[in-house]
């Protein structure tokens, strides 16, 4: 029982990370039907920016988080404008290959500058190293921070998408881009904004992971990126609630498998889940035939 609760707490923390990354995949897909394979690398860049801020500039956690989000926002918009926007009218496969190209570019540019070695965030402020024993279940301050920050960001995101003008424009463009144009909505700006939002969340996830595992490297975005993509597909790609559901489900599945079985099998289980979803419910758990995309 305690073991189960422990694994669920761990799963909640890990799932928050996947959910944050999956949101970016799903929002971008919802608006331009593109699987942005460079998204996991934006998360990696976020982790490095956080590292640089905390280790080299001696900034606090919150400042570092905000700066990483800001840098990733700009990076996401630049990627969209430079790499994807010129291909708006191209075939989907051309854009997809470009996305893989951008991904490799980010990975190896980062490697060129910082080397391939794994780096650590070093000694964290003492308050972040605390942990609490709640009825035999160990909850660390880092986990609380990860879950708390993630939930806060998700609430802010929901507010933006549901209530603000630009959020309504995002939903309008995802449902009918031409009709949105007829309302006077700038589709290009709305797409950029979507990349900005998704990239900011990925940047935050990068810093949170850096703090959690205390180890980052230029290829760290590959596997979590893939898993977050699976999370998005699992919940129904294009659907914000689907990304959250998928993220937490994959996080919990991973920690349960490694807790009860072996961490060797976690990836196999996650990819197995993807295959099952694709066979039995290709539109994802929350997806239907007529689906809301953002």
């Amino acid at each position: 029982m305690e073991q189960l609760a422990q694994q669920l707490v761990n799963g909640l923390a890990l799932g928050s990370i996947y959910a944050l990354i999956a949101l970016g995949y799903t929002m971008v897909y919802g608006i331009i039907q593109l699987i942005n394979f460079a998204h996991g690398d934006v998360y990696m860049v976020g982790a490095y920016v956080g590292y640089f801020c905390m280790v080299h500039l001696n900034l606090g956690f919150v400042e570092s988080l905000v700066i990483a989000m800001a840098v990733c926002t700009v990076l996401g918009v630049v990627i969209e404008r430079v790499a994807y926007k010129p291909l708006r009218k191209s075939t989907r496969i051309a854009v997809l290959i470009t996305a893989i190209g951008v991904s490799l570019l980010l990975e190896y540019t980062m490697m060129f500058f910082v080397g391939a070695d794994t780096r650590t965030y070093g000694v964290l402020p003492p308050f972040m190293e605390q942990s609490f024993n709640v009825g035999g279940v160990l909850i660390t301050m880092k986990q609380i921070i990860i879950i708390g920050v993630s939930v806060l960001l998700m609430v802010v995101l929901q507010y933006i998408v549901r209530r603000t003008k630009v959020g309504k424009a995002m939903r309008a463009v995802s449902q009918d881009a031409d009709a949105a144009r007829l309302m006077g909505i700038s589709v290009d700006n709305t797409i950029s904004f979507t990349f900005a939002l998704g990239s900011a969340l990925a940047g935050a996830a990068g810093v949170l992971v850096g703090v959690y595992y205390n180890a980052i490297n230029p290829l760290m975005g590959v596997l979590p990126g893939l898993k977050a993509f699976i999370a998005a597909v699992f919940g129904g790609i294009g659907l914000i609630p689907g990304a959250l559901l998928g993220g937490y489900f994959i996080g919990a599945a991973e920690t349960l498998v490694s807790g009860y079985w072996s961490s060797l099998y976690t990836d196999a289980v996650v990819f197995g889940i993807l295959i099952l979803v694709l066979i039995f419910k290709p539109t994802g758990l929350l997806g239907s035939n007529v689906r809301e995309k953002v």
Partner: protein
Amino acid sequence: MLEIKDLEVGFGGITALKGISLSVAEGEIVTLIGANGAGKTTTLRTVSGLVRPRAGKILVDGQDVTRLSAQARVKRGLVQVPEGRRVFPQMSVLENLELGAYLRKDAKSVASDLDDVFARFPRLADRRKQHAGTLSGGEQQMLAIGRALMSRPQILLLDEPSMGLAPLLVQEIFSIVSEINAGGTTVLLVEQNANMALQIAHRGYVLETGKIVLAGTAAELTSTDEVKRAYLGG
């Protein structure tokens, strides 16, 4: 007020518009009628800036808007109710109407226009929280018109508002279009239902495979043999 000059539009090998010219004066209802594939929708999409023409000009109040973005044209008061309604299906009626006012900053007059739309279409008022995709075809058409009104159009472009509606609803929609026009909005109405369109329009043009083949007042067109035979079922 709106002038189209020698407009040519092509899609790859197909030439959809082969140099059409037409004009709509302030306060008029002008109808553009034609069979399937004549190029009516292409004309409106080009006027709204969704399609780039190969040649020709579009003028609003004498000013060339041919190179302007779709957004800038909405700002100019060129507002379209597209073919097939194109409401945002997963958004509420209210949100759809709010999107119509997307470019407007004057919250007060937006709110009063919203009241006007609900007064004009009481069925929308009852369903303001409902998803637009769950509305009936007639209600969706009302929403599409209401949404366009929220943009404060100078010139309202309507693409087959009668499509797929029962005769009684068609009547209702057309009388609403007349009312909107009487309120001072200039209207360019694309229709296949020539009969109804010519009843409310002042003037009309007949489009055939990308060319304007006839033009005249509504009365003239109604009494033309060709129009009677091809479009009025007699």
